[in-house]
């Protein structure tokens, strides 16, 4: 299983976060998309549950956008 940016956007949509899905830009930073630190925790947990993997705190510090997140997931899934 691999994760596409579209998959991640769909997952974020299912979480019903207080963000405007119509303007969500996967390449933009979380902050630019109006995703705060608590929303991020929700997203990271949903990713861990869906893809059955663990993202360390150190890994999360290197993830600044949904595109980064998709890339990191694929890196872990293919490792």
């Amino acid at each position, binding site marked *: 299983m691999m994760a596409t940016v579209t998959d991640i956007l769909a997952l974020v949509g299912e979480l*019903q976060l*207080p963000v405007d899905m119509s303007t969500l830009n996967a390449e933009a930073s979380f902050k630019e998309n109006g995703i*705060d*630190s*608590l929303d991020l*925790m*929700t997203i*990271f*947990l949903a990713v*861990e549950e869906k893809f059955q993997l663990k993202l360390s*705190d150190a890994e*999360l510090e290197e993830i600044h956008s949904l595109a980064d997140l998709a890339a990191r997931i694929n890196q872990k899934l293919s490792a």
Partner: protein
Amino acid sequence: MLGIEHVASYLPEARRENIQDARRFDVDPAFLRDKLGVLQRARKAPNENTSDLARLACERLFRETSVDPHAIDALVVVTQSPDFPIPHVSAIVHGSLRLPDRCAAFDVSLGCSGFVYGLSVLQSFLAANGLSRGLLVTADPYSKIVDENDKGTALLFGDAASATLIGPDALYVAAPFTFGTHGALHQALICRDGVLKMNGRDVFNFTATAVPGDLAALLDKAGLAVEDVDCFLLHQGSKFIVETIARRAGLPMEKVRLGLENIGNTVSSSIPLLLEQEVKNAQTSTLVLSGFGVGLSWASCVLRRTR
């Protein structure tokens, strides 16, 4: 049958204004209101200690009921913020309330799950020993250990205490209970060298995964569905935490109480503070309580109103 006869609380008058305090952390007021859910934090006076808050909650309970302090057989104080490492806070409170010599007094060291644990412990203690009435007190003024420069904790916690009278003339009967512990994660909430440290992500992941499952197990054990429960009193970790649990457990928010906006997360006192309001509300006859936090530990139970 033994159960909860009354609940009273003590909230210090002083408040810390979160919008003002949040400026140094560059935190948006909307985040305080919509996510943390805390705009003010109750703050004890500098000369007040844990036992003072506990005593004041008990004194209010005695004023609100006709119970004679000399009728108290056991006093349990739930706290991890004692006045001193030795002795236990319950001994200090026992002395200041002038409870009878035959009254048992001991502390229970738990945080946010402590009220539900304490309810089971005290009820069981009274029943096992043929005793009639007990006082369950919660008091964890985290202002003693919070670092005001720690963004992760400085805007969250408030000081409070509660006193719950357990006796034969029960307004609420508590059963069944569920309990659990993830001890491997004990460092996620820890006080080192007198300062509280919290790994917010570990606490969030624990809460979001353990508590909904525990609520489902509790309802199954009780033979209840979500629709059968009138309200859910979840530990008020933050508005975000409460809403996350509700979403993942399938609880409609109109059944889930929120009560931290003007006081903050009051640790072991958050559930009894909500319950104190429900005592006045005869419309809620079946309640679910769930506490979770330090340990990492959790406990839940069903309360049924008798009248």
